């Protein structure tokens, strides 16, 4: 018996001593996670702290993370959570408060202010941080550069519209180009935009129209939604978005991130809206045929949906693991590692100087458009009830796109439901 107790004590001591020797990070299943794993392996070589990046399919990512947070101890030590999750993570005690640690460990001045505000801070403007920026992504467009540069197409376009066929700066120009390339009999289509009814793709697609047409989700101070969600500008944005479906493939009223991607990489679509993190794969598979541009604007306004995720530490893991995770985050955000990060497929930095550098802008065909997009990103609500707000928005916007309800009626219903959710959550003032 004494021998057994000694062995038990030794094994307990050993396990406690090694508690901070490895960390598990949960992220979605995509190329940037592979890049993070590679950097994690470099970190392990330098520090002896192993990093395991566990990848979960996008469709189950949110469910699995929050289900695991329901346990007394999480299976992960850090999570690369969606930007909208931060309010829930912060207010429910799921994310570790990094406010005191982050400014001392990371060069805050080097971080792009939009990335810091949208990916790390909660509540907005509070300077309280619950994440560090990891993947700084934005919504943009891939287009068929070979079609745009085809002299016959250029001549035909000029004859029809009286201007050169070029990357569109406004949504109106975008619609002209989409209509020009819409040739269903030849299996060629004008555009594919984010309209999927799953987690958030319809909302992420719609926001690009909502903001540039002058609308918004509500008043961030009072959480009032009536007159914002259903404003004439928002209605105009939604109606414009719907009008583009006439120049899209059959079924494009329900295209998620992957379906948009497929419609472009199968060679049938001229312009495709998606997140930049998907574009390295497009560039690799399509080569010079593909080009990339930032979101068009309307009446002088330009905006795009924020993508990407912040790096948060679980409040439900051991202090040793939390410390190891902090070391990894601080190491990852050093400029040297950020330079390595941008060389990984879909690895997008929040380092403002790197984003602005000519070397970064010219390194890939999509980097310049990405860097321009980061300056104009905006995000959906990131309050604790973001998920209910998101689900309601997906449902009502879907009804408008399907034609079940006119845009105005759908947005009126959405404004009412959002107001109810804010009231129930005690946020409405």
């Amino acid at each position, binding site marked *: 018996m004494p021998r057994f107790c000694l062995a038990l004590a030794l094994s307990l001591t050993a396990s406690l001593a090694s508690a901070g020797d490895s960390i598990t990070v949960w992220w979605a299943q995509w190329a940037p996670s592979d890049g993070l794993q590679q950097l994690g392996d470099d970190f392990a070589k330098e520090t002896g702290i192993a990093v395991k990046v566990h990848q979960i399919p996008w469709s189950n990512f949110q*469910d699995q993370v929050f289900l695991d947070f329901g346990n007394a101890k999480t299976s992960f030590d850090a999570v690369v959570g969606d930007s909208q999750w931060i309010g829930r993570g912060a207010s*429910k005690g799921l994310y570790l408060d990094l406010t005191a640690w982050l400014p001392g460990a990371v060069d805050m001045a080097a971080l792009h202010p939009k990335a810091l505000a949208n990916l790390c801070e909660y509540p907005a403007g509070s300077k309280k941080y619950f994440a560090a920026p990891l993947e700084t992504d934005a919504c943009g467009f891939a287009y068929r550069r070979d079609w745009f540069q085809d002299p016959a197409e250029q001549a035909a376009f000029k004859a029809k519209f009286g201007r050169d066929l070029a990357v569109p700066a406004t949504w109106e120009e975008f619609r002209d180009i989409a209509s020009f390339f819409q040739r269903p009999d030849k299996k060629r289509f004008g555009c594919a935009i984010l309209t999927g009814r799953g987690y958030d793709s319809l909302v992420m697609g719609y926001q690009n129209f909502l903001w540039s047409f002058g609308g918004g989700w509500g008043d961030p101070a009072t959480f009032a939604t009536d007159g914002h969600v259903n404003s004439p500008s928002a209605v105009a944005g939604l109606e414009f978005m719907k009008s583009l479906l006439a120049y899209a*493939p*059959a*079924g494009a009223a329900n295209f998620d991130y992957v379906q948009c991607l497929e*419609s472009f990489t199968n060679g049938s679509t001229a312009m495709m809206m998606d997140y930049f993190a998907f574009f390295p794969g497009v560039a690799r598979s399509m080569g010079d045929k593909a080009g990339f541009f930032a979101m068009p604007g309307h009446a002088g306004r330009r905006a795009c949906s924020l993508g990407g995720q912040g790096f948060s530490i679980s409040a439900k893991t051991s202090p040793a693991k939390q410390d190891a995770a902090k070391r990894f985050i601080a190491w990852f955000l050093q400029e040297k590692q950020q330079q390595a990060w941008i060389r990984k497929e879909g690895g997008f930095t929040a380092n403002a100087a790197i984003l602005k550098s000519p070397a970064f802008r010219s390194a890939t065909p999509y980097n310049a458009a990405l860097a321009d997009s980061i300056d104009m990103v905006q995000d959906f609500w990131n309050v604790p009830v973001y998920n209910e707000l998101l689900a309601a928005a997906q449902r009502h916007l879907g009804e408008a796109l399907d034609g079940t309800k006119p845009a105005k009626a759908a947005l009126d219903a959405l404004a009412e*439901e959002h107001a109810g959710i804010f009231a129930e959550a005690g946020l409405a003032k």
Partner: protein
Amino acid sequence: MAGMPGTGGTRMLAWSFVGPALLLLIAFNLFPLAWNIVLSFTNADLSGGTWEWVGGRNYATIFSDKSFAAKYGAALRTTALFTVLAVAIELALGFALALALRRDFRGKTPLLAVLLLPMMLSPAVMGLFWNLILEGTYGPLNQILGLAGLSQPAWRTEFKLLCLLLVDVWMWTPFMMLIALAGLNAIPAQLYEAAEIDRTPAWRVFARITLPLCAPLLGLAVLLRATDALKQFDLVMAITGPNDQATQTVSALLYQTTFANQKVGLGAAYAIVVLVGVIAVATLFTRYLDWMAARQGREG
């Protein structure tokens, strides 16, 4: 066990047979049900934290909250429509197939095997395959329609509920056929011989012999399929997702409430309401079947 001798040895033997099943029943049925009832009176959240007792507030939300009641009502209507249409079509097609396959013919066995294949496959996998078949531009169905000079609709956006029905009917018609075939084979041949001697018209034979004698088994098949269709979830998840107004069944709304919206307490209360509803429908239907069987017994 009432008739068993009460010796300790036989009692032990009896418990050793019944015990494991009883334990499994308690662990996997009764405990989750009891826990679900407890949760339904709390404001439990998927991501943990402290819970508070909220009494009947979750139940009040389901029935009186304008927003939730509207969603619940819409989900209920979608589920009812789906169940009625799916079961009716499957019953009609399944019975017709059973009548066609009733007599022996060459190749009947392999044909039956092929017809039974769909119901042996996973609904989630089938949903994903049908997504590809129904794809608007490159899906095989629209390619065939295009070759035939017909219009090629965007099935998954313009006819969402129809897509669900199509896949469900494709999967479960063989089940109806199988049960109907069993019913048809159980009808005594003498009844048909007597009808033939009396030169009874075919439609009358069908109406007075085939259908009534098959009815109890068909009723059972309808009951089984209806309770299954009332819980429709996997096809919805695979084809349109749980948050699409056009196809949001009660189970999809339950998932959306509990997992996407992370309101475990409200979801638990909603699950109880759904369970009571399904039990009520099933009870009514079994009573009806009992009444039919009793009437047949009286007439026989």
